[in-house]
């Protein structure tokens, strides 16, 4: 099994953690979790220079989940990597007094900054990338946004500054799953030609046809690392709810809650998929 196959398998293993977490808590944003998990897996297990032991290292890569409502997926990744006890996250997510709340916060090891409101990550990432340039540090800053989130005007202020300062150490990924809470993204608000928008602000744009395929994502991030004098944007075309048949491409699963039957079916489908990856 090569590394991208391992990444694919890991992403399906993490999908089961996500389902466990959202089923137990009756909270979370499962649809977006399942669209973004391959992006998170590729970044955390292959691309980024991060680890629990080096979580305060000034030279670590920086990661910001701008679509912060999908923090459930990020908790599963960080817990799996050993930043904290994953079972604590799964068992207490969104419960009274838990540090594992519904948006990223720095009480959780591995989270760089508090977030939650949409449209902040690119600008904060610009500041982090600028600091690296000022200090002569080599770390890279990765920001993950949602396609619905790109309706927030503040993103474009951040993109403008990223291009202006030629931040080739900044990589913005947009998880384009084509859905937001009210329905199809294009029906809610015209958000076509996202890639062109990034290009116009000076980004090197990499379109990833299947943003749920870790192999394609690996290639995209390798390309981004080699871009000079421009920030990069990875436009990852994903499927919301990817991996669970009844959740796929359905807006109702933006933050849907599973009943017991749905939970069992989702887990069975994911186990089957993961097992099929083993024998490839």
């Amino acid at each position: 099994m090569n590394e991208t196959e391992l990444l694919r398998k890991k992403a399906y293993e993490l999908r089961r953690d996500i389902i466990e977490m959202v089923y137990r808590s009756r909270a979370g944003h499962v649809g977006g979790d399942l669209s973004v998990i391959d992006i998170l897996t590729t970044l955390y297990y292959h691309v980024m220079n991060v680890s629990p032991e080096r979580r305060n290292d000034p030279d670590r890569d920086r990661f910001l989940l701008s679509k912060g409502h999908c923090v459930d997926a990020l908790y599963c990744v960080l817990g799996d990597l050993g930043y904290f006890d994953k079972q604590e996250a799964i068992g207490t997510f969104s419960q009274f007094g838990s540090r594992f709340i519904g948006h990223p916060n720095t009480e959780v090891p591995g989270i760089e900054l508090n977030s939650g409101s949409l449209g902040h990550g690119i600008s904060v990432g610009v500041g982090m990338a600028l600091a690296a340039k000022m200090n002569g540090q080599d770390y890279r800053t990765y920001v993950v946004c949602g396609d619905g989130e790109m309706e927030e005007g503040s993103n474009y202020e951040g993109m403008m500054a990223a291009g202006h300062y030629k931040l080739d150490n900044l990589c913005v990924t947009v998880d384009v799953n084509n859905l937001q809470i009210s329905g199809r993204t294009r029906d809610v608000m015209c958000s076509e030609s996202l890639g062109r928008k990034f290009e116009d602000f000076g980004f090197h744009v990499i379109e990833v046809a299947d943003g749920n395929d870790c192999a394609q994502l690996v290639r995209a991030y390798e390309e981004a690392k080699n871009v000079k004098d421009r920030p990069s944007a990875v436009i990852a075309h994903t499927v919301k709810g990817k991996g669970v048949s009844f959740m796929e491409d359905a807006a109702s699963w933006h933050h849907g809650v599973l009943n017991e039957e749905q939970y069992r079916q989702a887990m069975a489908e994911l186990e089957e998929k993961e097992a099929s990856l083993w024998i490839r």
Partner: protein
Amino acid sequence: MDQITNRQAICGVLCAAAREDKDIIVACSDSRGSASLTPFAREFPEQFVELGIAEQNLVAVSAGLAACGKKVFAASPASFLSTRSYEQVKVDVAYSKTNVTLLGISGGISYGALGMTHHSCQDIAAFCALSDMRVYLPSDRFQTARLVEALLQDEKPAYIRVSRQASEDIYKEGMDLTLNKANVLSEGRDVAVIACGEMVSHAVRAAKLLEAEGISAGVVDMYCLKPMDEAAVIRAAGKAELVVTVEEHSPYGGLGSMVAQIVSANCPRKVLNIALPDEHLIAGNSREVFRAYGMDAEGIAKRVASEMKHGTIRKGQREGGAV
């Protein structure tokens, strides 16, 4: 007045500090001139970040810089900083506890005839309502300089509002400032006047006018709106029959509201809040507007004297009584 403005005082302190510390960063939103920070930008181009006319980005980028070890001073007109970028202040600075000092320049009604869009009469209320945010309205250039020096010593979020025009000197160079402790400028037997920012100078002169009328008014410079020096409020109010607050702010949620909370809980007595009215403000320069609303020294003295003579407060009413 030919003296330097509070904005210029801030620039002087930041330039001196930046010579020793390359992590001190100034960020502007096409506001380096308005903020009197052009000398900083010229001397430290590597420590100056221009974000253009984009206040949301100004604050969020500043937070990102601070999260990576920079000590950031983000300057923009107080009107825009406290409204356009409010969510970035709430999330990226206050909630995230980033080392960002927000410099709200040309605060209050500094922009005079430019109108309501450019006034910041809500910034005290807005920023004080954010947990982990500190709010300061220094009264003159010397206090402003000491305040910035003090804030350079810690890594917590803060907001400083200064006026566009030079403020009258209250202190002397190197004045004594203990962070978050109010400066008691004078003691009074009858009235405790608690003021902030530029209004402190009007309050000081009002106290002199009142003295001529036989009313003894003490003045407290409450430059620290949050955390407010509660002990200083209680000490001043406890000795007086009437408490008066003076602020260049809406009557809601500012100095008057917060002082009234403290006084009512600790030493109940009447609190007269002198503030801008809750309406579309009249056009004019600061002097004209303050006079129009009875917020200059003469206006303050007149209202206090009237309250003491004809209001519910009677001189000596509480003598010997429980307070």
